[in-house]
Each structure stands twice: as C-alpha cells, then as structure tokens.
C-alpha cells in the first residue's frame, strides 16, 4: 500500500512496496499511457517524471518514490494538448506510437531544463529512449518546434 501524488492528485495504490512505479501506474491504477518495453531501463518507454526529473519508472520501487509523479496523462489531454504534444501531432511523429509517451516525457524534462536545446543536447537527453520505428528525425523536429513555440508564448 502506498500513497502517491500523481498528476497533482493523491492516489493510493494497493500493491507491495517493491513493485515498480511502472506497474503501480499500469496495473494498480489503470493508467496505461506509460509503457513497458524492457524492464531494465534500456529503452525509455516507461519514462515519467518525479519532481520534474525524467526517470525510468520500471526501476523505481513504489516505496521509493520521492516526490510528485507526472505521467503522459498529466501533461496534456486530447482536448487540451501541451505544446510539446501539439508539436508531436503537427510533425506526425508517431508510427506505431508505443514509445512516444516515454519520448514525450523525456523531451518535456529536457525542455524544462534547456528551453532551446541544440541538436547535441537533444542527442544526449534522448539517447536512452528507443524507437524501433526509427521516428528520431521527427522527434528531433518536434522538440525544436515546441521549443520555438514555447519561447514565443
């Protein structure tokens, strides 16, 4: 049993403390936007933020969550997209789409720290997020796009 703040809402998860946050979200709370890809922090599909920092939720035990959790469901919704999600849609980034929740959460953390990232900064920040469809060129374009629009806003 654990008490968490997820996307600004207090939540109680009835699962053992050693269960990773990923599975607490997916199976305990039916928040399935966060994806399982590898279970060993090798693909980034499960990326969420804890206190604004991008983390692999498959590696954080429920009992060790140290702050407020933000997931893909928390940064915007289909009716109210975050600027980054809007850039994702406009750039037609997704193919199969399975990795994109993690990509977006990682990119959101990047832009929070580095509002106008260079290509090299994008490389460093995003290298841990695998995409088997190879959408990287459009992910890069969407990050640049969103950075520009957020700057103008």
């Amino acid at each position, binding site marked *: 049993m654990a008490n968490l703040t997820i996307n600004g809402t207090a939540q109680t998860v009835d699962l053992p403390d050693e269960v990773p946050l990923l599975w607490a979200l997916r199976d305990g709370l039916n928040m399935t936007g966060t994806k399982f890809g590898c279970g060993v922090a090798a693909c980034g599909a499960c990326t969420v933020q804890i206190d604004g920092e991008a983390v692999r939720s498959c590696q954080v035990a429920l009992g060790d969550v140290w702050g407020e959790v933000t997931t893909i469901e928390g940064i915007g919704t289909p009716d109210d997209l975050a600027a980054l999600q809007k850039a994702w849609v406009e750039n037609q980034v997704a193919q199969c789409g399975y990795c994109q929740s993690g990509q977006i959460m990682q990119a959101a953390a990047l832009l929070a720290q580095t509002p106008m990232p260079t290509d090299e900064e994008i490389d460093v920040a995003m290298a841990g*997020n695998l995409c088997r469809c190879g959408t990287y060129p459009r992910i890069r374009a969407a990050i640049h796009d969103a950075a520009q629009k957020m700057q103008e806003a």
Partner: protein
Amino acid sequence: MSRIGTIARRTFLISSVAVAGGVAFGVYAARKPAPNPLSPEDGEVALNPYVMIDGDGVTVIVPKAEMGQGVQTTWATMVAEELDISPADLRVEHGPPGKAYYNRGMGAQMLPMPEYKVSGWAETIGEQMTVMGKFLDMQVTGGSTSTVDGYEKMRHAGASARETLKEAAAQRLGIARSKLTTEEGAVVAPDGTRLNYTELALAAAEIKPISAELRPRSAWRFLGKSQPRKDQLPKATGTAEFSIDVRQQGMKFAALKRNPWQGGAMNGFDPAAALAMPGVERVVDLGDGVAVVANNSWSAMQGAEAVECDWADGPSPATTEALYDAMETAMTGDANSTLLDRGDVSALPDGTVEIRADYRVPYLAHAQMEPLSGTAVFHGDRMEIWSGNQLPVHCRDIAAKEAGLDKDAVTMHTTLMGGGFGRRGYVDFTQYAARLAVQMKGTPVQLLWSREEDMTHDYYRPGAIASFRGAVKDGRAVVLDGQISGQSATASLMQILLGMTPPGPDKILVEGAFDQPYAIPNARLRGYVSKEGPPVGPWRSVGASVNGFIFDSFMDEMAHAAGVDPLAFRLDMMRDEDPRSAAVLEAVRDACEWRGETPDGIGRGVGFCYSFGTPVAEVIEVHQTDDGIKIAKAWIAADPGIAIDPENVKAQLFGGLAYGLSAAVHQQITFDGGAAEQLNFYDFDAMRMNTMPEIVDIRIVESGHRVSGIGEPGTPPAAAALANALFNLTGVRARKLPLAEQFDFVV
C-alpha cells in the same frame, strides 16, 4: 435486404445492405460472396462491408493491422476521395475477423518471377492466385500489400456509396441524380438544398448499389497529398490502446515462461518458490510452459523467474555454429531453386576479371517495442479475446480450438500494435492467452511476455550464408553466379497461413537477389534450404533483408573490381533492364550530389534493392571521428508507383532505413544449449537518437504505373549502403553482419 449491384470493373462487385439505422457498402472481387463478418443486427446478410453510414456518421472498416504504417488513415482517405467527405470526418474501425477481408495484394508476390517483370498474363495469374487466397481465409496484414490491396476497392466502395446516396436524394427531391452534386458529406441540389449522408442512409439501403468510374488522378483532392494521421493524437497523449493496455473488470495479470530451447517439452515444474512471492496467486500448467498469475504484471514476471522448470532438449541444433554448419551442408546438396538462370555462367571471355566472396548474416529478433501479449476471458460457452495481431481469422480460430468452441463463439478484438515487423503474423501469443483463460473460467486474464521471453521465443529472421562468384569486363558485370543457403521463412509462414508447406521453389529465400534489375548476360542464382534450426519467419522485408545486403555488397565488389564508380556501374546495367529502377538511382545520385569521391575521413556508399514492387536506393555517409565511425548522413530515393500519402511514404522509408541500420550495426541472435543468448536491448541494441544519421533528403519518384509496397522496401538497401560506405572509408570489405564486430562505431 442484401443487394448486389453491377460489376464495376473486372471482378469488382458492389454490394450494400441495411444495417441498424443505415446502410453498409462493400466491394468484393472474388467469384462469389464470402460470409459477412459484421453480423448486422437485423439478421440480414451483408457482403464484405467497408463503408457504413448511419445516423451518426460515416465509418470506414479497415480490417488491417495498424502497427505504425498508417494504414487506417490511408484507407480512410481512399474512401473519402470518392465519397466527398473530409478524411477527418470519417471514423475508422478495425472490424471483426472475416473471410471476406482477404488480402487482394498478395497474389503477384506469389509468382516465381521478378516483380519488375510482372505484367499482362502474369498479373492475371496473380489475380487468380489472389482469389484462391480469399478462400484460404487470408486476412493478412503483411508483405507491404495494404495500400495495393485497398487502392481500387476502397475507392470503389466510396464511389458506389456516393452515387447510391445521390440516388436516394434524387428520389426524395424528385430531381434527376445527374443534376445533384456532393460535397463535405452531403448531397447538394441545384437550388442549394443540402441533404446530409446521415439522413439519406436508411433510404440508400433500399436502392441497388450504383457503381461509377473512379476519378482520375488529376481530380484527386486528398489522395496524393499528405493527410494528418488519425492515430497521432491518441499516440501523443497516451490514450491509444495497445494490446498490453486492454483492461477488463477483475482482470488478472499473468507472465509466460516457456522452454528456452524452443520446441522442447516441459518435463515438470515446481511452483513453490513462485507461490511464496507476494502478489502471486496461481501457477498454471500450459503444457509446454507455465503462466504465473498475479495481481500485477511485475509480480507475475518475478514469479515466472522463480518457477523451477525441468526442460527437455529441443529439436534444433544447440549452437550457432551447428546451424551454420547445416547451411554449409545444404549448399553442397541439390538446389531448392534456380529462379535466375540465363546465359552460361561458366563462360569467362578473355580479359575478364573473376572475383569471389562469401557472406554470412545472423539470425535476428523482431524486437518490436511492445512485448507480446494477449488478453482473454472464457465463459464456458464463449470466449472474448484481444491481441495485436496481423492474422485475426487465424487467431480467432486457434483460440476457438484451445477453448473447444465453435469459431462463432469466439469474439476476437484486434488492438493497435506497438510494432510488428512480421512478429505479429503468428498466433502463439493469442493461443497461449486462450489456453490460460480456459483454466480461469470467468476471470479475464492478460498474459504478458517479458522482454526476455519475447526475444528468446521469436520466429527469427533466419540467418544465411552465401557464396558469390562474378566476372567483370570493360566496366560491366558479365557473369554473376550466386548461391544462398538458409532456413525457409516461407515454410514457417505457410504452416501458419495454410497448415501446409506448398511444394516448389522457395522464392522468399532468394528474393532481393534473383530478381534484381541488372542486365548481366550470364547469371544464375540458386537457393538452398537448410531444414534444421529454431523457429524462423518473416522479418521486415523478409528475404530481401538478407539478400539486399549480400547481393548489393557483391555488386559493389564487382564495381570495385571493374574499376568503375559503384553507382555508375549499377546504373549502366540497370537502364535498359528497368527504367524505374534507374530513375530511382539517378534521383539519389542527384540528391546527394554523388561525385564518386570523398574527402579524407569521409566515406560514402550506395545501396539498391528492388523489393515489394518498389525500387529503393540509399546513400550513406560515414565520418571518421576521434570517438569512432559516425553514421552521419543518409539520402533515400524510391518509386512506389503512386505516393498515396507522401509524408507517410517518407516516414516508412526512413523508418525502414533505421530498422535496417539497427540490424546491420548491432544485432544478432546467437544460440547456445539451444537457447537464444541475447535477452534484451542491452545486448540487442538499435539505432538511437544520437546514432541515427541525419536524413538529408528523401526523393519520391512516381512512375505512376501502379501502386507498390512501402512498409518494407526501405530496409534492404540500408545494410549494403552502410557496408559499402565503410569500405569507401576504410578499405575493409564487410562480408558478415553485424558490423559493430568489425568496425568501431560512435556509441
């Protein structure tokens, strides 16, 4: 009442049927109607519905696996073009499994000849084979055929719906149909009166469907232009539902554990350690494996690791070397095929330079982003089951068999897929979910494969060896004599599709090699089937994924031996053989400003492969840096005949390139003790943001002669282009993959 309309063109028939609150239109191309899979509520029989209109709007049924290729949007756009409605206003549903949704595009691929030569009688034969395919229940997504499959029939469905709705309006308004027009989902009368399709749907169901000529390309408003993909919004917001995201009330979470030596039996198991773990509820015997059921997936996977299983040895050779020995042995026996055989390959005129090269490529896992899963609930007399699959009819049937039910008692849902690449053209993940559910009557259960279980229980891209001999003279190849040996992906796939392996030459084993558009006067290509090994199957671009590398690398070697620029060498022998291919090679040459020489520290290579009806050429540029070799830039050119959605075509091409480069640089599956040795992305890596080359330019050449595939053809040239670039940079010729074993790449 079901109504069958006129023959629209060749074998296309238009049909319509009344459904609750409206009308469904369909097109079918076979000799007689197949049973309707949509079971309209009024009990009437409809035929192969693709477009349904009711009071709420227009729905397009896309009975195709959406695994990233954008098929739902493309098919909806084909309907929209003729129906005069914005693609954005169409709803899309996958629909239930149905015999009527056979894949019309697969016929030509079954012909034992190069596809660039398919025309006339061959197309006719191909159509015959496709009709046969319908009766074999081939609702398949694969072979880069979806756009080919839908290109005419979805437009016919839209056109027929439009004209029939107009007729309904004509009768209501007392105005001749010819005086009416359509726009934005409505029929418009000369006086400006608008009747929405939704309000005409019921009346349209009473009218015999009217067919119409398809609009010429010059009149297209949506096709040929990039459309916003319908799946972008859900995929950017985490609301898209993949197989793993299925949730049912009271659902349990289970993890699968099977014999790491695939095909081996389970002698017994001890569940005690697993049952002692928190969250674990049950360990279920699945015959040749176990499922651990828990209240969350992680505990289930932990439990699966803890179950002690006694595995028997499997039937395949235990080690990688034994597998390659078997391929060597096969190559000393009789050839399975000689699909290319012209001139005299033993002829060596004066002045020729003879070269030989041997190649070896590894087994590969698909490693789609979403690990396999299936979810099912068994109610005793019926079953409901969900999975992300490319074969819904086969999946439903295997689930029915597991449950001992009639096919009609199984409701099969096909979800979005987190990548497929060929892996989801199998039924195993659906079958095990059904088998587990049968033992948990009344309780929905999701059976998940861990990444490790997924990677070690694949139908692998078969490894292969090849031995090539060639001769060049006066700047041209005069002899090419190739032998390729490997396991048959065809045999594996046909067992699943048809329950048998058809006799005859295995075209897939040698595709990408025997069928390349080069005018080489003396040429022979023989294929040898190695029968022993682990389960194998189609992997994005199938045989061409192997042979695109081998054949095109050898072309590069011959160019070098001939002392000719490698791009000019290919082009010279291609021009007369297949102008489409030549135009593609010229396009990539122009895009990258190919000059045939590069500065120190920079290498360039070209790769070409004709596959799935589409010639694709790629140029890769590599840079020597202090941190190793960087795959810096890439250019792509391709001719899919007609680019139905140009931006999506580009996405498929650079995605295909990335998939090919990932394998070329990093990937191999090796075996020891019968088990795959690679487990996860840390030892089966792929291109990432920092290692993906900049895609400088993608040029789409549209010869317009017909629509051809695009999901796979981007993959085969990638490995060859990279290996050829590495040769240009380093002088070292790569004849074995993966390349990271021989070259020091930036990581």
